[in-house]
C-alpha cells in the first residue's frame, strides 16, 4: 500500500503529463500482480465497494475522535477521506504493517454494511497517514488525481512498449486486476480472447480541413453534430456505451443502453431531444445536464431524452466491418438503423450538394445550435483507429467573434505558473455595466502572453488569492464556436470554446460589444 500511496501523492503534486505517465509506467513495471492491476483499476475509478460509502468513513471517524473536532478539521481540509486519514490516531507502540492492495481489495470486497466499519478501522490501524489516504480513496472512489482512462492506457502502453490501440481494445474486455493484460503485454503471452465481450474499439478521428477544395465524388459530406461522440456496443448479451476516451458511460444513459438490442457496434453522436431544433436535437447545454451522472431519474429521462445519431457501423453481428470501405459500411448501416428503436437511434443524413462551392455556401449558412460544421469522409476509407491523415476531415463553421473587455486574470499552471494567462472578460449591459461573459486561456502567441501578463501586473486593481481584477481598459477580440443561455453566469450567457483571437489595443473599451449583441448570436 505504501508504494501505491506514494504513486497517488506524486500524481497529485505533478502537473506535467509526461511526468505523470512516467510515474505510472514505472509503478506498473516494478509492481507485482495483482497489485498493479488493482492500482490501475483504482486510478481509473473502476473499483466499487458498495458497502463502503463516504458516510461509512465519516461515522467511523466519530468512533476515534470527537465529532466536533472532526467537523472543524473536515471544514479546514475540505475532503472527508483526507481528513480521516490525517486525524486517525496512531497509537504509540503499534507496529505499522504494509498490507498489499490485494489484501485491502479482498477485505473490502468481503465487507457488508454491518462489517465494513470494523474492517476499514482495522486496515486504518495498520497504516501510516499516506497509506490511509490511499486506502480511503480506493475504498470510496473518486481519486481525482488527474488521470483519465486515456492517460492510464497510454502509461500502460509506454510501460511495456506495446501499441496503444491494442491496449485500448483489450482493456475494456477484461476485469480488474487485468492479469491477462499484463501477461500479454509483459511476456508476449496470448492475446486475450474477446469474441463475446462488449469491449471498446478505438474511434477513428479526423483532421481539420485546411485546403481550398475537395472532389465530392471521392468524399461524402455529413453534418458534424454538436453532442458527444459515443460508441454503443451490444455483444454477448451485454450492452455498453463508451465515450470518446473509452470511458464506460452506460450508467448515465440507461435509456440508450436498454434500447440498443441488436448485435453490433455503432459510432455516433449522443444528443438530447429538444424543441429548439424543430423537435430534433437540443443544444450541447441540454446534453451537459445528463453527463457524468451515476444514476438518472425518471424525470430526467423524460425531460431530456437521449438519442444517438449514428455515423458508422463497426460491427454487425459478428462481422467486423472496420476494414471495409466507408461506402460499404454506410450501405450496411442504412439497413441496420431501421431495426433499432426509433426514439433512441437515427441515421446521420448525408448532405446532398452538387459541388464544393455549393457546400461552402451551405456551411456558411448553417447556424444551427446542434451543428458544429461538416465532416468530409473519403468514400474508400476503412475505419482506422486514431487520427489518420487523408481519410476524414472536419470543417467547422467559422467562429463567431465579439469584442470584450478584460475584467479578471488568473495565473496558469505548470510552465505558465508565473504568468497571468487565464482571462475573464465581459460585455456591456444597456445600463453601462460590465458583466462577465466568458473565460479564455488560449489563442495567443508566447509574445502576446508576455504582453498580456505585463498588462495585468501594471493594471491590477484588486487581488483575490490567485485572481487579479484589472482596470477595465483592454479590449480582447474573442472567437467562439457558439453561445448559449446559461444560468451559471450573471450575464445569462455561456460561450463554447472561447479563445483570444486578437488583442485590440487600438479599441476604446466603450466600443466593446453589448450583451444584447451577443444574445442575438444565440442560435
Amino acid at each position, binding site marked *: 500500500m505504501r508504494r501505491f500511496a506514494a504513486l497517488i501523492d506524486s500524481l497529485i503534486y505533478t502537473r506535467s503529463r509526461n511526468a505523470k505517465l512516467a510515474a505510472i509506467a514505472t509503478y506498473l513495471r516494478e509492481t507485482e500482480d495483482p497489485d498493479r492491476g488493482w492500482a490501475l483499476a483504482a486510478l481509473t475509478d473502476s473499483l466499487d465497494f458498495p458497502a463502503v460509502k463516504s458516510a461509512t468513513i465519516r461515522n467511523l471517524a466519530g468512533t476515534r475522535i470527537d465529532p466536533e473536532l472532526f467537523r472543524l478539521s473536515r471544514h479546514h481540509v475540505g475532503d472527508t477521506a483526507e481528513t480521516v486519514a490525517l486525524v486517525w490516531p496512531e497509537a504509540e507502540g503499534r507496529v505499522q504493517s504494509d498490507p498489499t492492495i490485494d489484501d485491502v481489495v479482498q477485505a473490502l470486497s468481503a465487507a457488508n454494511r454491518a462489517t465494513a466499519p470494523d474492517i476499514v478501522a482495522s486496515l486504518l490501524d495498520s497504516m501510516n497517514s499516506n497509506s490511509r489516504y490511499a486506502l480511503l480513496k480506493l475504498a470510496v472512489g473518486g481519486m481525482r488525481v488527474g488521470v483519465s482512462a486515456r492517460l492510464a492506457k497510454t502509461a500502460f502502453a509506454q510501460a511495456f512498449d506495446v501499441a496503444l490501440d491494442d491496449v485500448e481494445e483489450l482493456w475494456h474486455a477484461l476485469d480488474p486486476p487485468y492479469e491477462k493484460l499484463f501477461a500479454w503485454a509483459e511476456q508476449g503471452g496470448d492475446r486475450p480472447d474477446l469474441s463475446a465481450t462488449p469491449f471498446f474499439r478505438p474511434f477513428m478521428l479526423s483532421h481539420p480541413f485546411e485546403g481550398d477544395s475537395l472532389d465530392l465524388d471521392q468524399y461524402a459530406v455529413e453534418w458534424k453534430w454538436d453532442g458527444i461522440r459515443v460508441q454503443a456496443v451490444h455483444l454477448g448479451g451485454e450492452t455498453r456505451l463508451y465515450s470518446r476516451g473509452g470511458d464506460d458511460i452506460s450508467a448515465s444513459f440507461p435509456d440508450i443502453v436498454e434500447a440498443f438490442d441488436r448485435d453490433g457496434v455503432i459510432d455516433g453522436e449522443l444528443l438530447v431531444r429538444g424543441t429548439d431544433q424543430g423537435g430534433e436535437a437540443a443544444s450541447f447545454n441540454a446534453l451537459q445536464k445528463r453527463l457524468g451522472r451515476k444514476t438518472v431519474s425518471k424525470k430526467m429521462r423524460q425531460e431530456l431524452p437521449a438519442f444517438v445519431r449514428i455515423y458508422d457501423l463497426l460491427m454487425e453481428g459478428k462481422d467486423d466491418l472496420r476494414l471495409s470501405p466507408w461506402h460499404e459500411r454506410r450501405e450496411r448501416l442504412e439497413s441496420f438503423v431501421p431495426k433499432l428503436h426509433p426514439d433512441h437511434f437515427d441515421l446521420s443524413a448525408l448532405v446532398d450538394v452538387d459541388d464544393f462551392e455549393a457546400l461552402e455556401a451551405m456551411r456558411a449558412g448553417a447556424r444551427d445550435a446542434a451543428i458544429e460544421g461538416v465532416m468530409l469522409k473519403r468514400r474508400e476509407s476503412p475505419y482506422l483507429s486514431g487520427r489518420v491523415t487523408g481519410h476524414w476531415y472536419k470543417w467547422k463553421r467559422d467562429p463567431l467573434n465579439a469584442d470584450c473587455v478584460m475584467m479578471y486574470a488568473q495565473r496558469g499552471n505548470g510552465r505558465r505558473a*508565473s504568468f497571468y494567462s487565464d482571462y475573464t472578460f465581459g460585455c456591456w449591459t444597456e445600463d453601462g455595466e460590465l458583466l462577465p461573459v466568458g473565460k479564455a486561456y488560449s489563442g495567443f502567441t508566447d509574445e502576446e502572453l508576455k504582453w498580456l501578463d505585463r498588462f495585468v501586473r501594471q493594471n491590477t486593481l484588486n487581488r483575490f488569492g490567485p485572481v487579479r481584477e484589472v482596470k477595465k481598459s483592454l479590449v480582447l477580440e474573442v472567437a467562439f464556436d457558439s453561445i448559449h443561455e446559461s444560468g451559471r453566469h450573471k450575464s445569462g450567457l455561456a460561450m463554447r470554446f472561447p479563445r483570444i483571437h486578437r488583442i485590440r489595443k487600438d479599441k476604446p473599451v466603450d466600443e466593446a460589444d453589448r450583451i444584447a449583441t451577443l444574445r442575438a448570436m444565440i442560435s
Partner: protein
Amino acid sequence: MAKAKHWIEPHPQGIYVRPADVWIDPSVPKENAVVTHGHADHARGGHGDVWATPETLAIMGLRYGTEAGTPVAYGEGFERGGVRFSLHSAGHVLGSAQVLMEYQGERVVVTGDYKRRPDPTCAPFQLVPCDIFITEATFGLPVFRHPPIKGEIAKIFARLEAEPDSSILIGAYALGKAQRVIAELRRAGWDKPIYLHGAQVRMCELYEELGVSLGELRLVMDTPKEEMRGQIIIAPPSALTDKWSRRLSDPVTAMASGWMRVRGRARQRGVEIPLVISDHADWDELTETIRELAPRETWITHGSEDGLLRWCELHQIKARALAMVGREEGDDG
C-alpha cells in the same frame, strides 16, 4: 480567581499588562512593549520602549531600523509596576521568547509562537510552570501533525537524485524557516553552495553574525542559469510563482510549511514537493504542553482556536479564546 483578568487584559491589538502599563506584541505603536520574536505579526516598528531578547532586537533593527530597546537574555528579566517580567526560550525562531509575568503571587506565561521540536538555529523551548497559560494555536486542529524533519529533507535529495538536471526551489519564510531549512540541509550532509533569492540574504547574514553557521550561500542573481542545475535554491514563498522564478530553468518547486500537511493547500500553490516543516507547535505539542503545565486557565491567542478550545472543553480544562487581530495565518507556518 478573577484576579488575572483584572491585571492582564486581552485587546484586539495585543495583551495589556495594566499594573506595568506594558503591551505584549502590540500590533500598533505603543509606549512600552515586550516583543516575543521578530515576525511581523508580533514585532512592529515605532514603539517607545521595547524589551526583547538581544537577537530579537537585532532582527527588529534589521527590519525596522529601530535602535531603542532593552536587551533581556533568556532567564533574565525586569520589574515594572510591581510586575516581574522574564523571558524564556520558545524554540520558534532565533531569539524567540515566552514572557513570564509574576504579580502578587500569580504566574502568567505568554508563549508568543513556539515549537518543541529540535531546531539547530535556535534555543530549545523551555517549559515554564504557570497559573495562566496564554498560548498560540496556529495548528490547533488534529489534522496537523508535523512528521520528523529528516524525512522531509530526504524528499529534496530523492528528487535531485531522480532528476539530477533539475533544480529545487524551496519556498521558505525569510526569518527562521529559511535558516532552519539551510541548517537541516547541512546537517543531512549537503555541503554545496545554497542559492538565495535576494530577499533572504540579509537575514541569513544576521543569523551568521549571531553565531548560526549556514555554510556557503550564493545569490541567484549572480549565477548563470546553467550553473543552478542540480542545486538547491531558497526563496520567499511569494517568489515561487512570481516573475523572478523565470530566471531559473525548470525548477521543481517545494514549500516548507506546516500547511503543506493538507494536499489541497499544496496543490493550490502549485507545489510539487510539499515539505511539512513548521516552526509552530503541532496539535500534539499544543495539547501535550497544556497537559504538562496543567495551568489553572488556558487562554488562546490566535490560530485555530476553536479546535484547541474544544480539546480543553473535552479535557475539562478551563479555557477561553482571545480575539486577536493582525495574526492571520501566513507563510510563516
